C-alpha cells in the first residue's frame, strides 16, 4: 500500500484522532436525545462526523493519484522551537511562575527576552542589531500599551518595585 498524498494521509489521521477524542469525551457527558439535548449531544455528532471525514480523507490519500505525492516536507524545527520558547519565556516574565517560585519580571524584561530568543530563530543573528531592536520595541510597547492605552501590566521586576 503506497501513500499517494502524504499531506492528506496525515490530515486524515489527525482528523480521525481528534474526532474520536471529542466523540469519546462527549459520550462521557449526558447525551440525551433530540428533544432534550444534553451537553454531549452536539459534540458527539460533530466528533463522529469529523472522524468519518478524516477516514474519507485518509482513504483518498491512499487511492487518488497525485503528481508529486504531496509530501509534507521538512519540519522547520529551529524556528518552531525558538518561537515557542520565546513565547513561553515572555509569559513567565510577565506573569511569573508561582509553582517554581519565579516572580514576575515585568514587561521590559519580557520584551528583551522575547526579542532575543525569537531572533535566534532567524538565519542571520546579530547581537547588536537585536539589542537595538529590543530597546526600540521596549520603548514603543511601554508607550503604546502602558502609557497610552493604560493596560495593567507589571512593568518592572516585582523585587525592584516591591
Amino acid at each position: 500500500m503506497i501513500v499517494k498524498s502524504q499531506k492528506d494521509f496525515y490530515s486524515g489521521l489527525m482528523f480521525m484522532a481528534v474526532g474520536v477524542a471529542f466523540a469519546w469525551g462527549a459520550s462521557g457527558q449526558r447525551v440525551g436525545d433530540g428533544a432534550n439535548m444534553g451537553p454531549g449531544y452536539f459534540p458527539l455528532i460533530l466528533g463522529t462526523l469529523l472522524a468519518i471525514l478524516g477516514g474519507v480523507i485518509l482513504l483518498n490519500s491512499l487511492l487518488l493519484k497525485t503528481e508529486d505525492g504531496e509530501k509534507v516536507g521538512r519540519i522547520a524545527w529551529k524556528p518552531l522551537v525558538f518561537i515557542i520558547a520565546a513565547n513561553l519565556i515572555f509569559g513567565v516574565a510577565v506573569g511569573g511562575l508561582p509553582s517554581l517560585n519565579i516572580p514576575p519580571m515585568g514587561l521590559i524584561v519580557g520584551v528583551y527576552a522575547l526579542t532575543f530568543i525569537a531572533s535566534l530563530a532567524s538565519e542571520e543573528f546579530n547581537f547588536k542589531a537585536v539589542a537595538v531592536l529590543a530597546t526600540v520595541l521596549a520603548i514603543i510597547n511601554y508607550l503604546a500599551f502602558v502609557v497610552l492605552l493604560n493596560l495593567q501590566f507589571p512593568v518592572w521586576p516585582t523585587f525592584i518595585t516591591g
Partner: protein
Amino acid sequence: MDLITNLSLGFSVAFTLTNLLYAFVGCLLGTLIGVLPGIGPVATIAMLLPTTYALPPVSALIMLAGIYYGAQYGGSTTAILVNLPGEASSVVTVIDGYQMARQGRAGPALAAAGLGSFAAGCVGTLLLAAFAIPLTEVAFKFGPAEYFSLMILGLIGAVVLASGSLIKAVAMILLGLLMGTMGTDLNSGSERFTMGIPELTDGVGFIVIAMGLFGYGEIINNLSKHASERTVFSTSVKGLMPTKEDFRNMLPAVLRGTTLGSVLGILPGGGAVMASFAAYTLEKKTKLRPGEVPFGKGNIRGVAAPEAANNAASQTSFIPLLTLGIPPNAVMALMVGAMTIHNIQPGPQVMTSDPTLFWGLIASMWIGNLMLVILNLPLIGVWIKLLTVPYRWLFPAIMLFCAIGVYSTNNTTFDIWTVGILGVIGYLFIKLGLESAPLLLGYILGPMMEEYLRRALLLSRGDWSIFVTRGLSASLLAIAVILIVIVTLPAIKKKREETFVED
C-alpha cells in the same frame, strides 16, 4: 425618507471629532499592520482588537471598521507590491497588480485599487442602509430551524469558494465547531473538554485562536523558508496618479465590479472571494480596447474590477452579519467576537434596540472608506518603505504585539501558553495543506449553531425532519447542497483548480 433619516442619524453619531479620530487611527493602524508582509487581515484585526477594549462600544466599532478597511487595503497593497495576497479575495489582484508593479506602475495600480474600492464602498454603504430594514424584518420571521440551515449554508458557502480541497475545508469547519463547544455548556452548566483546567471553563478565546493560527503559525512557516524565497519588494514606484487612459479603462471596470460585488456579497458564504474572481473573469471576457495591455501582463482593469468587487461585497456582506447575526467569513467572524466583547450580540435586535450604534456603524463604514483614500494615497510612499524592513526585525515585533495583546485580553499568562500551542498547531496545518479560516468561522458559529439546533429540535420534539419540512429552511439547505454538487462536478472542479493556480 427613512433611509435618509437613518443615515443622517448614523452620520451624526460618526461625525463627531472623537469618532472621526478613532476612524482615522483605526485606518492608520490597520494599514500599518496589514501592509506588513505575511500578516493578513484576520491576524491584523486580531492583533489590534485589544486596542479598542477601553473605548465605548460605538467608538470601538468605528475604530474596528477603520482597522478592517485598513487591513484589507494593506492586503491589496502587499498583493500588488510583493506578489503576496493577504487574503483569498485579493488573490486575483496579484495577477495584474504585481505585473504593473514590476513595470514601475505600482502607483497607478495602488490608486486604482484605492479609488475602485472607495467607489464600490459608497454604493455598498447605500445598499446596506437600504436593505437593512427589510432584511431585518425577514430575519424576525426566521425560526431556529431557519437559522440553523442558514448557518449550514453560510459555512458551506464559505468553503466551496476557498482554494484547496473541499473535504479538508469541511473537516476544518467541524474541528472549529468542536473547539467552539469547549468550556462551560451554557444550557446545562457542565464543563466540556476542559480537561480539568480552570482557565478553560470559558473555552479557548477566539483572539487566542486567531493569533496562534494566523500569527504564530505564519511566522514559523515564513522563517522556515530561506531568505531568498521570501519575495522582497525591490522595484521603485514612480508617479501615483493613473493616466487619463487608465481612468477611461478603469471606470467601466469599477462599475461592473461594484455591481457584481454588491449582488454576490449579500449571499451567505465567501461573497468577497467569489466577487473578486467573478469580476476578474468578467473583465477577461470583455473585449480589449485597441492598444490595451492584455490581462496577466499588467492591465489596470484587472486590478480595479476585482478590488471594487471585493470591497462592494465585503460591504454588503455586513448585511447578513448585522441583520441575521451570521458572519459570512473569517474576518466578519472576528467582528462578531469583537462585538461580543463590547456586549453587543449581533443580530436583528441591534437595529431596534440600539439604533445609534447600528446606523453609526454603517456611516462609519463609509467614513472608513473615505479615510482610506485620503490617508493611504498620499502615504503610499511610507507603506512601501515598510515593505523594505527586513523580516528578521519584523517578526519579533509581531510576536510581541500578539503576546501582549493576548495577555491584555484576560490578564492571564495561560492565554500566552495557549497561543504558543496553537502556533505549533497552525504551523502543522500549513504543513498539511489545511486552511485555518474555515476553522475560525466554525469556532464562532459553533455555540450559535448548537443553540439553534437545540431550539429547533425542542420545537419538533426531536424530529430532525423539521429542517426539510419547513419551506424556508429546506430551500436554504437545498442551496447548500446545490453549491456542493456544483463544485464537485468534474468540469467545474477542473476550472476551479485552474483559477487558483493561474499564472
